[in-house]
């Protein structure tokens, strides 16, 4: 064997980075997740603008701008890094807007965003630290503050005009025609009146599915929200169990307890399809109950969480003072999250089978 005369003569690197292992990472980041969730919400948001016109766009912009500005202001004041660009404040704003009626007075979205970001998120320390879903705190805050404004719903333009193109033409129209939401009619006038208002059950389902009904921005188009949610499931940003269990629970219990004949409860006569497609259930199940920060850590915990959300939603819808309960159900389950995490956690490796030998 030959001996090399000199030791190696390669160019040594000038500086080497020293960190502890591991040294590789996948491409995910909080910023990426947040913006992708924003993107998946976009189709439904655009649809709501078509459906309700310019006022919807204004509400949405107010919420997003309000949330982002509030976050920036608080972080600037606290002298910490301003993290508006990570998209979480924008997402909160967008989700908040989806929970508000179109064309609501300007101060409602502003106050709601301040409550969402200023009270729910940053009093706890910002992203990752909040206990309650900020968007829902914002909504509940203004719901209690301005009950009248919050239940004055804009009427769908598509539903009223003969065709889609006609609705597109009316986007720039500022006037908001107010009406009731399907769940509101159900609560006040009963099931039959609701079906009559659509002119038949299948017409009602179709309207609810496509979204040309009244309601808040994100309560209307089931199909676009489901599509957005499916993208999240495929990208593994959310677990499919959560929306499935939550929607399934609502369907099951409304089917069992939701039916009334002549004002008296008759079991197994409810209309689960109506309850699934109306109100904020779809957006709640896909986008809110799956919020990472405020839900349990483990999959089993999340399933329990989703079940609880479904149950409380049904309770409020059928027996409560409000026509819609998704928002409160998620807030209440947020409060239960630490308890769920306390009792449901993975059993550590090696603890399942009894040790073979004992020393």
């Amino acid at each position, binding site marked *: *064997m*030959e*001996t*090399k*005369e*000199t*030791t*190696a*003569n*390669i*160019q*040594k*690197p000038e500086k*080497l*980075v*020293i*960190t*502890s*292992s*591991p*040294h*590789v*990472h*996948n491409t*995910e*980041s*909080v910023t*990426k*997740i947040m913006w992708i969730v924003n993107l998946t919400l976009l189709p439904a948001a655009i649809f709501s603008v078509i459906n309700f016109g310019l006022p919807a766009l204004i509400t949405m912009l107010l919420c997003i701008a309000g949330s982002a500005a509030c976050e920036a202001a608080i972080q600037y004041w606290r002298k910490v*890094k301003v993290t508006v660009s990570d998209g979480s404040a924008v997402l909160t704003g967008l989700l908040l807007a989806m929970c508000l009626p179109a064309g609501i007075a300007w101060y409602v979205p502003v106050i709601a965003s301040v409550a969402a970001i200023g009270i729910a998120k940053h009093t706890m*320390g*910002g*992203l*990752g*630290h909040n206990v309650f879903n900020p968007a829902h705190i914002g909504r509940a805050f203004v719901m209690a503050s301005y009950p009248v404004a919050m239940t004055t719903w804009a009427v769908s333009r598509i539903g009223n005009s003969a065709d889609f193109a006609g609705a597109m033409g009316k986007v720039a129209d500022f006037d908001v025609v107010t009406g009731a939401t399907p769940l509101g009619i159900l609560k006040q006038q009963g099931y039959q009146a609701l079906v009559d208002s659509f002119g038949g059950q299948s017409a009602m389902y179709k309207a609810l599915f496509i979204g040309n009904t009244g309601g808040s921005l994100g309560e209307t188009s089931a199909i676009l929200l489901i599509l957005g949610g499916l993208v999240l499931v495929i990208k593994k940003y959310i677990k499919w169990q959560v929306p499935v269990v939550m929607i399934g629970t609502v369907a099951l219990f409304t089917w069992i307890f939701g039916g009334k004949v002549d004002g008296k409860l008759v079991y197994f006569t409810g209309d689960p399809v109506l309850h699934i497609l109306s109100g904020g259930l779809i957006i709640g199940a896909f986008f809110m109950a799956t919020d*990472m*920060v*405020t*839900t349990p*850590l*483990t*999959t089993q915990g*999340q399933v329990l969480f989703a079940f609880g959300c479904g149950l409380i939603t049904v309770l409020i819808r059928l027996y409560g003072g409000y026509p819609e309960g998704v928002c409160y159900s998620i807030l209440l389950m947020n409060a239960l999250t630490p308890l769920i995490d306390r009792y449901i*956690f*993975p*059993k*550590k*490796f*090696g*603890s*399942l*089978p009894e*040790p*073979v*030998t004992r*020393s």
Partner: protein
Amino acid sequence: MLRRIKGGVHPHDEKKSTDDKKIAVLPLPKKLFVPVHQHIGQPSVPVVKAGDEVKKGQLIAESADGRGTPVHSPTSGKVTEIGNYPHPLYGKSPCVVIESDGLDQWQEGLLTDRSWEVLSAAEMIDIIFKNGIVGMGGAAFPTHIKLSPPKDKKIDTLIVNAAECEPYLTSDYRTMIEYADDVIKGTQIVMKILGVQKGFIGIENNKPKAISLMKEKCKGKKIEVVELETKYPQGAEKMMIKAILDKEVPSGKLPMDVGCAVQNVGSLKAVADAVEKNIPLIERVVTVTGRTVKNPVNVMAKVGTPFTELFDFCGGFRGANGKIIMGGPMMGMAQVSLDAVVVKATSGIVSIADNEVDLKEELACIRCGRCIDVCTMRLLPNVLSILSEKGQHQTAQTDYNLMDCVECGCCYYVCPSRRNIVHYIRQSKAKNAMLRNAIKTGSK
């Protein structure tokens, strides 16, 4: 049937650049820096002094307490000094510096030709001990200890760890392809030593060639080749056992507690060499790879070879380097300088380009739960990291099973907030160890 573990991650394996490259032989370096600390435990004590002439394979350091392993000279030449030089794992550590005489002359009495079948288990364990064999998968646990379990532990299965789940590394793979017979022989030797009737070789399915070769060679030998789904960290001892036998090693216990012994492919080759030819462990297969290495290679490198020699052999670098890692990128150790040397546990040297180094700012945990999904030990890594951040190291240990963490790094790999959870966990472990020592010394 494909067997696998739950959890874990699947990083891009990056093995393409070296998996078809034959094991090259490195030109003999002029100077070798042989560290005397090459296994877990107390460093060995040098038995040579500056000025001594040594032959290839000659004993140069001896275990101080019998639990460590001896170190042998990788080539013939002259000991110039015994001093502190960079060690890839322990910073600066005592090394025997040998100036090669270029002859590479074996010491007498080595290179025997005996059959393992005639030797008894005790004899073979002694041979393995004397030839300084350690676990070559990265942990460097002395092999002879692993092969002498306490009497009350009945071992019935041997598992050969050929998963090589770390990205980039191909040294085990090449060893299997090129030294298949030695590996099988080593397996049989260890099976005889442990008196087990059943052997498994676990290979991940991204190495189809190795699987078919091993299957062919194992015919009629009580050794079963198991195909595993490619997944990190399947090469960890406990995971290997879980994947192949579906047994879980209880927390704080060893594989022998479930009747298993796990050996790395490289170690088995070394065992075969030691038992049949009386060759000590003085060289090993090292994968030198990475995006900035000009010609990535698998190379048979002598223990004590500086990394600079290896990179020189590869034709140097292209582009700026970010990190140089000994071992795989998931569990390997980032190197301070290229002056560190190959040790018995060096399975590979990986360079990470400047633009690959991820130094994004760490954010708060957003509780997404990905780390929990991938944690093969079924812990709550995010909670551990937060507890460490808040200084609650004791709570982490008592309530959240801190000590069960194997530091595989899957949690960091998937963390969207880029929290170096493993680092937090190491800090907690270190803090707790300090506290325990303080209590111990305080009570004395």
